[in-house]
């Protein structure tokens, strides 16, 4: 508190001086501005020190994650022990299933969150209601909102989360690891120019569109995502459109159902029969892939490598 007052006094006084300097400066040609900027830099520096100091005073020990991707990120960063609550959808890694549940992503239970006494609640812009954040603030609970939506944003997003959680090192190394893999994949460019369709659900036909990790992955591999039409992130697609655009490769995600390998093949049978004359189906270029790309977390790397494996 005393330090704060000191800074304010200091700043106010010097500010006055510098105003005077500015005036003189206009007549005598720039000797004082130098002094002014040094003072400003100094003041800023002290402020930053102060802020950093108060923040590190309460490094969060009890973390609640409001999204499966965040849960995966926290576990990958080695903070699994600090997680005290997750959503009912957080099923990866295996330990996440043992954590106390606080409800769904769009409808988390406020009571459960408060009862777990978190130091910080980590939310995402991709599925958590904004009102919930406001409500948590009104109850005096700290939040951090993870804003990354695409793979290129992921490393930066991880670093920022690391800063917020006072765990820069762990998160930086996680970000670097992802960055390295992405660069390696990019340099391979194994899908150069191929038209790719990623089917999320066969009936009704939903595909991965713009602004999704799948779209980024296809782009990084050098392919063209023919699902990226219109505005929707996961648009409804017509079978006509598949014929019209004639994909070279079709991926079908298994991640939306239990025992995806068996069930998704069963569910996709009808669709694949109807598009049997599309070149990808005729040439047997239809692959069933895991859910790595459905969550913007550490496993997107596995997801990209899985796609890359089928493209070779």
């Amino acid at each position, binding site marked *: 508190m005393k330090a704060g007052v000191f800074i304010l006094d200091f700043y106010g006084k010097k500010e006055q001086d510098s105003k005077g300097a500015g005036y003189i400066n206009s007549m005598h040609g720039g000797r004082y501005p130098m002094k002014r900027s040094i003072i400003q830099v100094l003041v800023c520096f002290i402020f930053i020190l102060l802020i950093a100091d108060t923040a590190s005073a309460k490094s969060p020990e009890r973390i609640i994650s409001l999204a499966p991707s965040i849960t995966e990120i926290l576990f990958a960063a080695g903070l699994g022990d600090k997680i005290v609550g997750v959503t009912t959808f957080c099923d990866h890694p295996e330990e996440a299933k043992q954590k106390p549940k*606080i409800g769904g992503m769009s409808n988390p239970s406020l009571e459960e969150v*408060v009862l777990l006494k978190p130091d910080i609640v980590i939310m995402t812009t991709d599925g958590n209601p904004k009102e919930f954040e406001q409500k948590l603030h009104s109850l005096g609970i700290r939040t951090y909102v993870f804003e990354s939506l695409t793979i290129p944003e992921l490393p930066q997003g991880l670093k920022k989360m690391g800063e917020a959680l006072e765990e820069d090192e762990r998160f930086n190394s996680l970000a670097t690891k992802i960055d390295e893999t992405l660069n390696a994949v990019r340099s391979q460019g194994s899908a150069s120019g191929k038209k790719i369709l990623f089917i999320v659900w066969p009936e009704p036909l939903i595909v991965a569109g713009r602004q999704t990790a799948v779209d980024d992955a296809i782009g990084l591999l050098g392919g063209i995502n023919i699902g990226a039409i219109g505005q929707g992130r996961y648009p409804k697609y017509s079978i006509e459109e598949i014929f019209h655009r004639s994909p070279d490769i079709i991926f079908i995600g298994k991640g939306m159902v239990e025992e995806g390998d068996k069930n998704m093949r069963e569910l996709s049978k009808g669709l694949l029969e109807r598009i049997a004359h599309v070149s990808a189906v005729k040439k047997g270029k239809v692959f069933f892939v895991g859910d790595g790309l459905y969550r913007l977390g550490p496993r997107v790397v596995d997801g990209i490598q899985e796609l890359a494996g089928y493209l070779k």
Partner: protein
Amino acid sequence: MNWKIFLITVTAIIIITVALFAGPRLINPFVMNDTEKEILLSIRLPRVIVSILMGAALGASGAVLQGILRNPLADPYILGISSGASLTAAMGIISGITLFGIVTIPVFAFAGALCTGVFVGAMGWKRGGFWPDRLLLAGVGLGFLFSSILMLIMSISSTEGLRRAMLWIFGDLSLADWSVIPYGSLFIAAGLSISMLRAKSLNALILGDELSHSLGFSPRKERFILFLCVSLMTAASVSLGGMIGFIGLLIPHMARFVTGSDNRILIPVSAIGGGAILCIADLIGKSVLSPTELPAGIITAIIGAPYFLYLLRRKDVLSN
């Protein structure tokens, strides 16, 4: 008759108390730690108050509306007010505007509901007064229009606000907050008390325009005032927590079954009953699949619809 009202009030109070302390995690009112106190005061109490307000507004509006439209199938949502509110609220949620902070969505919904109310009123107005059938049809027509615009917006928008909008449309009380309660209770109390003061003229209105005229009431004026009350109460209720199905239709019929169809008693009993039923529905909604919370609107419809059908068989509601 009075002991019945007494009994209903006592039951309602018990239900409200249970809703406060029960739930997926019981709170013992005599031994509370700080966290439990906070949960009780900042989460459960506003939630229970919001459900009482919403339920009371819907129950009373239903009773009044069935009277002024002389139609046993009328409920506050048939006038399209809720569809208008849902449309503006969903637009607010999906566009992500946070103009008024935590009360943004309620403000949007209230504005939408009021505009729709005015519009329906204008459509139902002819030769210096409201015509029940015109009001009803205008409301149904507008309701369809707004719901389809809503569907259109929802099918072309991709943002994650969509899921939130869906929840809101089904009536979601989970984010009930103290900040909306003063406004909501002001409008609802005003609407409720005016319609209770006009209960006598509503009784006359049900007999038909000519008869009520000869009994000394002006049907046009009374219908206008009561329509205003209903619009205000419905708008406030929808803006507090979205659409709660069935209470407006069902509760007045249940109340008639218990206390008869004198509106002086029917309106307050419908209000009390509506509040209590919504409290219970919300309690069930947040308890059965805990920690996943089901929107209260779904619960009221699931419990309400079968009971309504049972009542329909047991007693001929239409003959009232």
